[in-house]
């Protein structure tokens, strides 16, 4: 559905996109992740035909964004990270204006505007002036605008940036609904847990190159094992402490890192061993009040893939 072939974009001596090749199949919700300056926005702008690559090509539904931009524009809905709205225009008029720009006839236009206002939960704001809407509402309205001509590919650059948690949750719900409509969605975000919930696949960019491209599950699997964290209600006696440390070393092959009331075991030995460790600690009389592996987060995976803090990630 969407493909980048050896895409290169240079700004003077700076290489924003460096021989990027990636492919997104129809119906996928694809996340685009990377630190600032990784080339996400540049790649998205090339796909939206707002920028010409220095070399390579990008295709949407087999149509070249370089050679047939007008055709690609009909296939793509684009929502930039920063955008303005017109003042003195009501929400429905704003959408009506863009419907006119995509040459939609008056009757279809009315129905489509109603549908999009409903989808983006803005029906009650139909008569409100656009410049008086909250940031979250403006973002949703801009999303509705991007969907106006029923595009096959939706390119969303940081759609939830600057939103409060409630507005982000609303946006997430809408995007989930759009994903269920079967549209191909390319979405960039700095809020990785949200991407993991929404996306079926993702690409991690760094310095203009794809350092990972695959499913979200695969991305999480790449992460090294999460540590076992044991929390104690109170500090045990010294002999118990020594026995517990020995028991854990026997089971995992290495001693735990012991802080007051919190022990940490980095080694991995499977869930059975974790269970045995818990039993051993309880039998020794260690007052365990918390026991479990830390959740594998996408942030950690991202750090690993991009070389851990190397480029001051924007999370």
């Amino acid at each position, binding site marked *: 559905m969407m493909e980048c072939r050896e895409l290169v*974009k*240079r700004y003077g001596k700076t290489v924003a996109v460096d021989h990027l090749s990636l492919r997104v199949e129809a119906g996928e919700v694809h996340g685009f992740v990377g630190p600032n300056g990784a080339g996400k926005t540049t790649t998205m*702008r090339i796909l*939206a*035909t*707002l*920028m*010409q*690559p*220095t070399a390579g090509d990008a295709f949407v539904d087999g149509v070249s964004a*370089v050679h047939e*931009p*007008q055709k690609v*524009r*009909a296939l*793509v809905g*684009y929502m*930039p990270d*920063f*955008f*303005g*709205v*017109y*003042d*003195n*225009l009501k929400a429905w*008029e704003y959408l009506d*204006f*863009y*419907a*006119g*720009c*995509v040459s939609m006839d008056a009757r279809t236009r009315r129905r489509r505007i109603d549908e999009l206002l409903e989808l983006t939960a803005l029906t009650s704001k139909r008569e409100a002036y656009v410049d008086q809407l909250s940031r979250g509402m403006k973002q949703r309205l*801009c999303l509705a*605008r991007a969907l106006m*001509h029923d595009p096959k590919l939706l390119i969303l650059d940081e759609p939830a940036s600057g939103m409060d948690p409630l507005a982000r949750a609303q946006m997430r719900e809408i995007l989930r609904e759009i994903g269920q409509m079967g549209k191909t969605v390319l979405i960039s975000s700095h809020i990785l847990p949200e991407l993991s919930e929404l996306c079926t696949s993702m690409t991690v960019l760094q310095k203009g190159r794809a350092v990972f491209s695959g499913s979200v599950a695969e991305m999480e699997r790449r992460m090294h094992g999460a540590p076992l964290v044991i929390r104690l209600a109170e500090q045990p006696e010294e002999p118990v402490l020594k026995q517990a440390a020995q028991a854990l070393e026997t089971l995992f092959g290495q001693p735990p890192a012991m802080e007051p009331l919190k022990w940490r075991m980095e080694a991995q030995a499977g869930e059975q061993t974790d269970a045995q460790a818990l039993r051993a600690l309880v039998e020794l009389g260690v007052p365990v009040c918390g026991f479990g592996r830390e959740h594998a987060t996408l942030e950690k995976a991202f750090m690993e893939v991009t070389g851990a803090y190397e480029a001051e990630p924007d999370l």
Partner: protein
Amino acid sequence: MKLNPIFESSARRRMRTGKTALILTAYMAALLVFSLSQLSVFFGQGVTVGRMRLGTEAYIWLTALQLALIVAVAPALGAVSIAGERERQTFDLLLVTGVGTRKIVLGKLLESFAFLALLILAGAPVMMLAHVTAGIPVMRVLETLMYLLAIALEALAVGIVCSVLCKRTLSAIVMTYLAIGLLGGGAWALAKHGPLAAHYTYESLRALGGMSTAEILLGMPLPVFFCPAVGLVSLLAHQTGILHTTMQSTLRLFDIYSAMKAAGFGATAAAGLGATCLSTALLIALAMGIVHLKTGFSYQKG
């Protein structure tokens, strides 16, 4: 009929702003004061030749006021049109719709023109008073209004070109005022100091008796026709006759008056209108060309 969406939306937004209401009100108030002062000469008194002269002068002053309005307002209107979209970060959203260069430029131009035309035509009833107070035929007044509208369109087209070239509205406005100043003052300077100017001394034109109007017009320095004020002044001279003296004492400095008089003020005004329309068309084509170059593939080239 499908309206250009950019025209429709921009016009709707403009008419909702307080600034528009303020401009309209102020202008209408000025016109009201002007028309009352013009009519007060005739209150309770008969029409005499002397008073008709006052009526004619009032008509000329009103036309000058309309021209001043165009020169003051049109650059700002035209210059903000496309640069404003960029500054507001809405231009990209417009481009991705695939709306096309022609619709963008014409939509913006026509919307600004519609507003300016509204202001100019608001002055029409007051200008029509010249029919009563100065005996100027209604058709002649309509000619003047048409000419003013043509000048307004040209000034807006200059603004649109600058708007396309500049990223910021402020620089676009400054550039437009400079360009309009150049179009007005520069045309005079070229006419005076250009290579063709030397041929048109008052003395040499005395001997032009056998030349046709077209020959005289074609022999005149072309830049002079591109100064909209030349055509408008010629039109007023043609309509009223009372500008001749003024023109002779001022314009003769540039040796153009003789040629204009020899060709006929009506013909000079028509040539001026033709040049205004031609330059407007060229400017619109230029603006479309620039937008197309910048956005035909894309807005930002690599």
